[in-house]
């Protein structure tokens, strides 16, 4: 039975690190898929995926979260992100399979100097994971 204050998160790996996003923001966890590209000038978008007839833009945020040394991203977390005129599915490349977990404790506050897209810290097992606000992160990326 789910406790009233329990909250679900999707945990995604980027190299050695794992991050968390609230599960309600996630639409789908996708297996490796063919990234399609065409000429454009938006630096935060690396291409599009064709998922069940829908065209989904791919925003690679690995360099922001873990730096330029992130290993190859093979899987996609598809989130419903806020854009200027509504929500839009957006694929985030991740390095391995994602997990779903439920947490009944309140997340801790992020470090004072943490970027604004880190909204909290989850204690899971022996470690901690940063909670990412994908809307904020992608908006910041889009603005360069």
């Amino acid at each position, binding site marked *: 039975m789910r406790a009233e204050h329990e909250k679900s998160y*999707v945990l995604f790996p980027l190299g050695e690190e794992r991050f968390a996003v609230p599960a309600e923001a996630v639409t789908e966890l996708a297996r490796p898929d063919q990234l399609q590209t*065409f*000429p454009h000038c938006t630096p935060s978008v690396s291409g599009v995926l064709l998922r069940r007839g829908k065209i989904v833009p791919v925003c690679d945020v690995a360099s922001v979260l873990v730096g330029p040394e992130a290993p190859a991203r093979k899987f996609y977390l598809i989130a419903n992100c806020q854009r200027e005129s509504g929500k839009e599915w*957006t694929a985030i490349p991740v390095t391995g399979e994602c997990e779903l977990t439920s947490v009944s404790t309140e997340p801790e506050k992020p470090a004072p100097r943490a970027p604004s897209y880190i909204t909290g810290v989850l204690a899971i097992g022996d470690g901690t994971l940063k909670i990412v606000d994908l809307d904020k992160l992608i908006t910041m990326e*889009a603005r360069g």
Partner: protein
Amino acid sequence: MRHKRPQPPPSPASREDVILFSVSGFKFVIAAGAVHEIRGLQGLQPFSLGCISVQLAKLKYTLERSGTTYFVVDAAFHFRLTPSHPSRLLILRNIPAAVLVDSTDRMMGISALHGLPQAFTHEERGWYRGLAVMDGDVVPVVNHNAFLSKTEQETLRESLGRLQGATAG
């Protein structure tokens, strides 16, 4: 966890004929109705505004055709691609412009035009009318009016006027 949220449907399923072409290894389509003629590169006259208009550096040639001067846009330059090896010219309808492309493939029909995702926020919003899915490939549907926009036509007229004035002076 999987939410079924309504996605904006592609625009109405009226079939549109398009011409598939390629530039610098990328495929594009253009509405067949926007193209007056497809031809080789014979008859092109070198054209340059020099430093008068850097903005119009994508114009490389002119073509005189049936009493009309067409300004020839290098599609690779227009789409910020590496220089390519054009072999075909698409003469556009209703605007005095023609487009240098590497090759034209075939004419085919698309039944749905998908909007460009909002994640794309830069110049490509003007370049494309949307995206089409063709045999599993996502191909941009070009906005033919963007090859030589009204603003660019105005700049061109002004620059040519200045150039003629300088020559006469």
